């Protein structure tokens, strides 16, 4: 990041303001004067008050602006400078006697600059939505006029605009009567309506470009190489504003203000609103939010933190780096965390999250009785060492790596699932795990790690899955056009595709299986845009020089799993963070764009660093997460954090996933579900593939994924009426409740005191003992129905349907 120099002046002043500096930002680094070049130039200045004891804040709209000499340029109340005559002027911002100045050189004020079609005209089509996917930007164009999507192909746009249809769209002799302008202003019937008004700066820019003869521009013309956003981040008080300033740096090292030419998008509109001139307004909601700024193929971001400013009180103990980063953020926000949860809640929460099951009655009893002060650590270690952990996480990876049965023999999906389970059980380092999958050769029976290649057969899906699952980069867009929110172009896409271009298959010895192997030839993929072959190129890296006998997938795996890879560790820690907290630091968890920043970047870096340093030790990562105070916070809000949904000031409850819920019901009713071809007592979370969904309405209706996508979002956690009906009144549940071998029947026969039985029911269902009131209510109910199993069925039924059971909290 470049250092920007501010011209600042201290002046002496009333005591209350003595410690507040005023800074003026022009977008030009190095303290050089800013330049206004050409009659149509403009420059957004941003004035910032910098108190010595508080965070800086925007005062662009409240300072008094003056210019010396006033003949050179003029400045608006909103801080926008426009030229009058050539010369040098000083802009002075004054606030309560504090001053800041900036120097601006005005050149060419008498004449219009020649606008660049590529860099100034095409971005207007983007700004006004002309080349959007719903209008002329779609692949068929709109009503015969086609523009490239979001202007990524200016050469084509020039052709279509200037020459196509016998040049009818432009009328250089009278530009204002051009079809283009008449349509754009809605003066002629236009399906898209009036997009711009006559006389506005952008309208005039288009007209002038035509007056200048609609030049296509020279390929050697200076072109923008980067954009910078000021300020990059800010602590924004609720309902305050911040003016943004966006500068483009050109290939000739010149700078130009593009604040009004870029597109602004707020990622969280309930927290931040942004105008087309870059004025950001914060709402009342506390937390981090970002504004995405796009200009041609470049993107930038403004990050805002909107504090609550509540009194902090006492924080839970800082147990590791996770707490350090989370609590630091909460202190910045003024958002006090909830207290650490009780033992019973922790036992249930962590057993569900690590082992994918509810604690047994015995576990609940003995954990409550355990006097070891370090019992939570011991519990996490015990769960991580259990096969339940491996089974549960193998199911997670099985869905992501698309272990779908299809028409394959069962042994193929079973083998891959088994390999995943064993890898997780033995805590295979994550880099090795990924290398073995990516570079796998052979048949499934010979090498189960080829399971991913069994399911994902097209190189297009292979590269997209790898980019999404392991890098958090959604490259799909770049198959057909430049990614709209990222730097990825089609060249990047096909350079990545080339890694899979030599993957070949042949029938394996085992029936119904194929063997995957690397074909000895030059690896490349054809970029359909340029019609040129692209050699294997890592994302954001250089073209690799590979020999025909090299397996490009090995090179890919080496690049991917290297400690310095910018994506690999972050993607995994974000995915696991979401597993345990219900929300990623980046959301969606596998869409890690520059323009989609983490809500706590320091924590993201800390986790990635920790994971890399541990040599990609998955169990160690889970251990750190689960032993943090942050993970152990109560879900019950205090008086300040009820609306928090992204700062982890408390635990966010979430409904149990389909398989976990089914297993939990089986456990608490004492009647297991039978799955075809699986041994008795097999858990739903341990099912090896998707083929069981079709025969199990419970799994379907609660959203178990069909393993068709590389996104965890395929698992639906939505609730529905059909689910509620099924939980309240399904034949299957009633049979489990009333089964002769079931828990209710056993409880009815049990000779122990009813209070004791009720206590055990609560321990089984909720991993805690009942309150006195709950005991009384339950006692009244069962006493009134003495000796009938029905009473115990009803009690278990009611507890199953309670939110305390249905949610991990």
């Amino acid at each position: 990041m470049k250092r920007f120099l501010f011209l600042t002046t201290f002046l002496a002043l009333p005591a209350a303001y003595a410690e507040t500096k005023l800074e003026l930002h022009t977008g030009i680094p190095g303290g050089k004067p800013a330049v206004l070049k050409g009659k149509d130039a403009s420059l957004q200045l941003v004035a910032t008050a910098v108190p010595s004891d508080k965070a800086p804040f925007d005062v662009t709209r409240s300072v008094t602006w003056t210019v010396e000499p006033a003949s050179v340029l003029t400045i608006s109340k909103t801080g926008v400078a426009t030229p009058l005559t050539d010369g040098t002027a000083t802009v002075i911002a004054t606030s309560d006697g504090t001053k800041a100045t900036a120097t601006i050189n005005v050149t060419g004020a008498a004449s219009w600059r020649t606008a660049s079609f590529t860099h100034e005209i095409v971005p207007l089509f983007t700004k006004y939505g002309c080349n959007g996917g719903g209008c002329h930007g779609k692949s068929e164009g709109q009503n015969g006029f086609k523009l490239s999507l979001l202007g990524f192909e200016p050469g084509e746009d020039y052709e279509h605009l200037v020459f196509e249809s016998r040049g009818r769209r432009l009328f250089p002799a009278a530009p204002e009567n051009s079809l283009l302008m008449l349509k754009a202003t809605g003066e002629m019937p236009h399906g898209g309506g009036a997009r711009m008004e006559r006389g506005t700066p952008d309208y005039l820019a288009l007209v002038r470009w035509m007056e200048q003869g609609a030049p296509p521009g020279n390929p050697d013309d200076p072109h923008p190489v980067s954009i910078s956003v000021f300020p990059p981040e800010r602590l924004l008080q609720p309902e305050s504003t911040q003016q943004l300033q966006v500068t483009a740096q050109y290939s000739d090292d010149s700078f130009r203000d593009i604040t009004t030419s870029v597109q602004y998008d707020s990622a969280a509109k309930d927290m931040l609103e942004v105008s087309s001139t870059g004025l950001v307004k914060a709402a009342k909601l506390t937390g981090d939010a970002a504004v995405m700024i796009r200009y041609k193929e470049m993107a930038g971001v403004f990050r805002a933190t909107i504090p609550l400013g509540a009194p902090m009180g006492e924080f839970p103990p800082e147990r590791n780096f996770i707490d350090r980063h989370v609590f630091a953020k909460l202190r910045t926000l003024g958002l006090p965390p909830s207290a650490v949860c009780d033992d019973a809640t922790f036992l249930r929460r962590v057993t569900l999250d690590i082992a994918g099951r509810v604690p047994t009655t015995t576990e609940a009893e003995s954990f409550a009785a355990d006097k070891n002060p370090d019992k939570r650590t011991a519990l996490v270690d015990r769960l991580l060492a259990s096969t339940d952990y491996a089974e549960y996480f193998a199911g997670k990876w099985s869905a992501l790596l698309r272990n779908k049965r299809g028409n394959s023999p069962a042994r193929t999906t079973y083998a891959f699932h088994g390999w995943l389970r064993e890898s997780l059980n033995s805590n295979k380092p994550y880099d090795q795990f990924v290398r073995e999958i990516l570079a796998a050769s052979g048949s499934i029976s010979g090498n189960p790690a080829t399971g991913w290649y069994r399911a994902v057969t097209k190189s297009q899906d292979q590269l997209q899955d790898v980019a999404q699952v392991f890098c958090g980069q959604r490259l799909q867009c770049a198959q057909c056009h430049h990614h709209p929110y990222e730097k990825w172009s089609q060249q990047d896409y096909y350079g990545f595709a080339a890694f899979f271009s030599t993957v070949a298959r042949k029938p394996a010895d085992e029936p119904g299986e194929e063997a995957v192997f690397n074909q000895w030839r030059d690896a490349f993929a054809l970029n359909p845009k340029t019609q040129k072959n692209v050699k294997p190129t890592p994302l954001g890296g250089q073209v690799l020089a590979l020999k025909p006998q090299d397996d490009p997938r090995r090179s890919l795996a080496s690049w991917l799993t290297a400690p310095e890879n910018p994506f690999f560790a972050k993607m995994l820690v974000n995915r696991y963070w979401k597993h345990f907290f219900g929300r990623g630091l980046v959301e969606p968890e596998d869409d890690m764009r520059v323009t989609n920043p983490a809500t706590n970047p320091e924590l993201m870096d800390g986790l990635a660093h920790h994971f890399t340093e541990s040599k990609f030790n998955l169990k160690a990562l889970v251990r750190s997460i689960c032993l943090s105070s942050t993970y152990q916070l109560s879900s019950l809000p205090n008086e300040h954090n009820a609306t928090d949904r992204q700062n982890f000031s408390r635990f966010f409850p979430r409904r149990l996933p389909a398989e976990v819920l089914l297993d939990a019901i089986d456990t608490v009713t004492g009647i297991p579900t039978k799955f075809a071809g699986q041994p008795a007592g097999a858990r739903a979370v341990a099912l090896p593939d998707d083929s069981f969904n079709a025969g199990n309405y419970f799994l379907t209706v609660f959203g178990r994924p069909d393993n068709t996508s590389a996104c965890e979002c395929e698992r639906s956690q939505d609730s529905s009426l059909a689910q509620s009906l099924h939980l309240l009144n399904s034949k299957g549940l009633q049979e489990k409740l009333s089964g002769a071998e079931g828990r209710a029947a056993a409880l009815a026969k049990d000779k122990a005191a009813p209070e004791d039985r009720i206590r055990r029911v609560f321990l089984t269902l909720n991993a805690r003992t009942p309150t006195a009131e709950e005991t009384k209510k339950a006692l009244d109910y069962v006493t009134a129905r003495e000796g009938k199993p029905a009473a115990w069925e009803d009690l278990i039924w009611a507890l199953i349907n309670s939110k305390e059971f249905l949610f991990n909290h």
Partner: protein
Amino acid sequence: MLTLSSRTHSNSFCDGLSRRSFLRIGAMGLGGLSLSQLLRAEAQSGKGKSQKALIMIYLPGGPPHQDMFDIKVDAPSEIRGEFSEIATNVPGVRICELLPGMAKIADKLVFVRSVVGAKDRHESFQCLTGRLNEKPPPGGWPEIGSVVSKLQGSTGSAVPPYVNLSQKMQHTPYNQGRNSFLGIGHSPFMPLGSVKDDMTLNGVTLERLHDRRSLLTAFDGFRRDADASGSMSGLDDFEAQAFDILTSSRLLKALDVSGEPDKLRTRYGKGTAQVQGDAAPRLNEQFLLARRLVEAGVRVVTLSYSFWDWHGGNFKNARQNLPDFDQAVSALVEDLHQRGMDKDVTVIAWGEFGRTPRINKDGGRDHWPNVSCALMAGGGMHTGQAIGATDRQGGEATERPVHFEEIFATLYHNLGINPTTTTVPDLTGRPHYLVDGTWQPMKELIG
């Protein structure tokens, strides 16, 4: 009332004007609106008392277009078929003699004779989604009811936005209610299909259900404010709805036609509860159910009607099916008109493809994706027309081919959704327009 333009990009047309603001400008231009006009404008913009709705009748197997709405009296005998045509109450529009009920109300109907873009595949997919299932996006294409559920949600009363009345059909690709990238939360509620078994009490009496509910209330004290995402309260809502269904409810009442006057039930006709072929029963009652569900607040009702894959005995089958179909459709359309629901509720009946011009050796007609037909009504459309034409043999569309996606654009339009500017995101976050390409709502029917 004086807002002239609103530059919000959501819910607006390509020109940046919302439908409402457009209406306001219109009002200014006309020098103000009467109260009734205003109310109508309200209703048209989807904010009125009654909701915009869709009833889609899927005809599994592919009905014979040339024996229904496009009789080829001049074709050679191996093509012509056995039926003659009759005049309708729209001059110049003639349809099959087996459809006299429709002929009498043809001014309230639209016969699309030139539906193109089908595939030779026995599945409801294209009729329900508008899409071919060639390269589905991650998660799969959603059915129109799921899209409406996602975009508009429930009407607020205790009814789901999307209800599918089909029973499970033996030929599985006929079935509806597929999961999609919009997630199971937007799948249809299927009271005669997947949830049927859960809708009547299983092994407990109503009294015991009440006991259980009181127990649940006593123990369900987990603090709801622990969940800021709304999923806990959402679950509470569904739970309340489910109890309503299990005890007695608006939805359950809507599903029970016994309260309807006998005369009206007779008007809709019976059909048969017997499953036809490997598809659906021919239950005319479902048309009445559909209307009742819409009245109860459902936005999209889909149903499957009979079985139309007549490779043999085409004409015998037509003689069995068309009179029932004629009665059900004409009763529904008349009923909607009588209740003043015709401006809000669109009806469409169609199948996955048409039938071969040439009659085969078994007196049947085979699959013919080149052209097929659709019957539409209501939705505030310009009814009383036949759209498109086929060649002399009924084999190819010669005039005004109408693509499936054009019909979908029209259906979305009628539901108050702009199909060309509205998007829904798939599992990768990629936005998808509701219809592909440049398809627009059918100009003949709207505006």
